[in-house]
């Protein structure tokens, strides 16, 4: 039984099921709730509410859809003292996330070069199934990446101070160690750094179509009418293997600790246990790998911009706006009933959205709040938002992460044709380079919700505010 709280918030009371320990709060409109009833999103959210040591309600964002274990868009905070960490609640693509770069290149001035730009990005940014990066990592490199994150790239000249400062956690989650990662994960990670992968991952050039908050846009360096670039990818085979290893090994831990679960994908271990600590260390290692991965792709994109624009304009630089994770578990301190409580916030298809004043933000964003990056589907648009103070009290400092799927991949690929879609998008002035046409069809705009409705919901709920709207120009997919 779902209760309506207001036009943008709903609740599944904990009395709804005997095994729920906390209620579920959903940020959604009535049509979104009705759509969610068509798949398993609501059941999955209720399943998450059975986890031991939850510090409060399970939150679900308006881009929710059925996942595995957690619904996509699910946020759960568990107490470090007596709660659990669930690898499946963070996902196989650990620290899948988005990086946004911006420029002062005016879209109208380069409209005739966009096809070349798409081709150059496709050439410089390795993508697709089995893609390998140009950097082959030694054991020591990998160990440093796991421990130091993006700082590893600075001594090679591959990351600047702004890149690091404008990355969540400054590109390094503490505690990451190669010691807690399997040999297999290391083998997979060594070959794939600086690669995009396939599926819904992309590099996308957009232009700033509209600005809603001048001060925030100025702080972020977003210029009306100018080009930006988004990178959406994660920890590649390294993270997939880390999660696979721990979801398997923790099948025994739930027996050891006597934890009853409604779904085995929610397998977990107490945070304060050998198993929990080992997973958090391995997860941090994979998250740090993902931060470095997006850093190297950002450099590859910068090289592509230079190849196309050098000599044709004075400034083709892409500066970092922000880099955020949307599949991650973070140890954070939240105020609960007036007291500071240390919790592990699981964000599965949700982003951190800290408000103004948060000490975790770089100086230039401390007045405006954290940039929240919400990519849409490749034919529509994307949003840059800023976190509000209310997010900490109402959504575990979290917001939505994208548009959210509505159509199954199986249906998308039978009802839409990749080549036809590519031509349609090009007719709209959007240049697509894709390694797989069936893969492109699965990611068609029609397979996703309207990202504008998703954004209007979190804005109306008061957890974020609008900064800028972006429109796509070039899309590279694996």
């Amino acid at each position, binding site marked *: 039984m779902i209760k309506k709280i207001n036009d943008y918030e709903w609740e599944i009371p904990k009395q709804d099921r005997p095994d729920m320990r906390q209620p579920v709060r959903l940020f959604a409109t009535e049509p979104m709730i009705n759509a969610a009833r068509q798949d398993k999103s609501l059941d999955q959210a209720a399943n998450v509410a059975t986890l031991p040591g939850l510090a409060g309600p399970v939150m679900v964002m308006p881009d929710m859809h059925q996942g*595995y*274990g957690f619904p996509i868009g699910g946020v759960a905070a568990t107490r470090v003292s007596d709660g659990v960490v669930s690898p499946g609640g963070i996902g196989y693509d650990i620290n899948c996330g988005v990086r946004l770069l911006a420029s002062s290149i005016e879209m109208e001035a380069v409209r005739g070069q966009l096809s070349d730009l798409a081709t150059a990005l496709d050439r410089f940014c390795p993508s697709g199934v*089995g893609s390998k990066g140009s950097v082959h990592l030694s054991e020591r490199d990998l160990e440093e990446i796991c421990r130091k994150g993006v700082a590893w790239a600075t001594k090679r000249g591959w990351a600047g101070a702004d890149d690091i400062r404008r990355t969540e956690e400054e590109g390094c989650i503490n505690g990451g160690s190669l010691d807690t990662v399997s040999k*297999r994960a290391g083998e997979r990670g060594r070959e794939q750094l600086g690669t995009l992968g396939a599926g819904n991952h992309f590099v996308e050039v957009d232009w700033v179509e509209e600005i809603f908050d001048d001060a925030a846009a100025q702080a972020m360096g977003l210029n009306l009418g100018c080009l930006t670039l988004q990178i959406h990818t994660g920890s590649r085979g390294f993270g997939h293997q880390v999660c696979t290893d721990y979801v398997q090994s923790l099948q025994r831990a739930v027996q050891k600790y006597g934890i009853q679960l409604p779904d*085995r994908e929610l397998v977990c271990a107490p945070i304060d246990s050998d198993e929990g600590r080992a997973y958090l260390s391995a997860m941090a290692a994979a998250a740090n790998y993902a931060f470095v991965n997006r850093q190297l792709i950002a450099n590859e994109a910068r090289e592509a911009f230079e190849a196309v624009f050098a000599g044709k304009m004075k400034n083709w630089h892409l500066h970092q706006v922000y880099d955020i994770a949307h599949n991650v578990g973070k140890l954070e301190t939240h105020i609960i009933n007036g007291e500071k409580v240390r919790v592990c916030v699981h964000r599965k298809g949700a982003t951190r959205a800290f408000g103004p004043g948060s000490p975790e933000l770089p100086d230039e964003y401390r007045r405006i709040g954290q940039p929240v990056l919400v990519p849409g589907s490749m034919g529509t648009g994307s949003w840059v938002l800023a976190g509000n103070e209310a997010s900490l009290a109402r959504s575990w400092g979290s917001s939505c992460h994208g548009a959210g799927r*509505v159509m199954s991949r199986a249906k998308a690929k039978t009802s839409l044709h990749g080549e036809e879609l590519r031509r349609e998008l090009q007719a709209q002035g959007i240049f697509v380079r894709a390694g797989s046409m*069936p893969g492109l069809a699965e990611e068609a705009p029609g397979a996703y919700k309207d990202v504008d409705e998703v954004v209007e919901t979190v804005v109306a709920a008061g957890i974020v505010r609008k900064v800028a709207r972006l429109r796509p120009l070039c899309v590279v997919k694996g």
Partner: protein
Amino acid sequence: MDTCIILKGMKEKKPRGFIELPNTADWALQVWAPDLPGLLAEAAAGMYALMQAQVGEGPRQTRTLSLSGVDAEDLLVSWLAELLYLAETEALAFDAFSIRVTGSALEAELSGAPLAHLTRMIKAVTYHGLAIRPGEDGLSTSIVFDV
């Protein structure tokens, strides 16, 4: 509901096989076979079909696997995860299996060849809703893959 999907479009249900199930964001399979070794082999074939993985005409290769799990479902996930690992790291796919299951452990001999074609990759095999169910004709289960 899954059974309806299996029967839809099929004049007669074969004793073993697989079919893709609708899933919003990921891929899912329904798999059935007379026994657990058969179920493991069909799950492998179904996973390769989802990935559009084709065994090439290169030199045949064999591998031997020994796996164990806490139960049959755990074994199924370990089995498929192993095949994914071999596809990604050695670009190998297999089309002939000799599988022996004892309790919740297996020994398997695989025969295959380098991949001729692979356009879609699976990130992982999940435990979501995973339950191997006995029926009149053997065993069946549904498997969700993260993509």
